[in-house]
């Protein structure tokens, strides 16, 4: 029993080192993309977002929205779905658990 524990404890640094070498480049890639794509909007960008919403409403009123191609519509639908999924991630954070409410 003591031998087995000693063997495991001797392997832990190597395992952790291997985990570090594996994860460092991948974390760097993730950070490389996340730094540009996943940042929250700076206060200067919020008026631009409101402008874009107004543009959307206007395009719906003028009927230009009916002229989007199917490819564009699918792409926009996927992006909308992704934005809506962030709501559920927020809900998981707010309720303190992944599945169900821990009451």
């Amino acid at each position, binding site marked *: 029993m003591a031998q087995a524990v000693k063997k495991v404890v001797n392997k832990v640094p190597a395992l952790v080192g291997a985990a570090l070498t594996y994860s460092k480049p991948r974390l760097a890639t993730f950070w490389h993309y996340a730094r*540009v794509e996943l940042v929250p*909007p700076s206060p200067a960008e919020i008026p631009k977002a409101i402008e874009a919403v107004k543009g959307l409403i206007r395009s719906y009123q003028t009927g230009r929205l009916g002229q989007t191609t199917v490819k564009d519509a699918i792409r926009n639908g996927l992006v909308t779905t992704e934005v809506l999924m*962030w*709501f559920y991630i*927020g809900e998981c954070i707010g309720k303190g658990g992944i599945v169900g409410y821990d009451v």
Partner: protein
Amino acid sequence: MMMMMMMMMMMMIIIIIIIIIIIIIIIIIVIIIISCSAKSPILHCFKGEKNYFRFDRKSHPSFNMVPPVAVSPLIKTARWSALLLGVIYGKQRFDYLKPIAEEERRVEEAEKKAREEQERIYKQLSEANSDTILK
């Protein structure tokens, strides 16, 4: 009484998990410190030649891969406001559901007690009334 014991057990389990996590973090920090020292034979793969496991920035895929896309501000605001709304909604719903669940648990406990009491009385009565010669 049982609930107190269960809560104490949960607290102990949480404390043990926290201690294990702290130990793992300390081990990782120690390994990083060891790897920074030049005379360590075990982890020489972190230092040394360029073409070993050395993390070489220019050959990293992120320099040869697609540049990150410039997300439109509308999508960014929508995403993060959806996240915020989700957190608020989750917290509010949790606070709404918690007292209801506690009430239900209390009612269930009381009913269970009443039921067990009934069963006990029934058993006692049936034992007293069972009058057989096969005692």
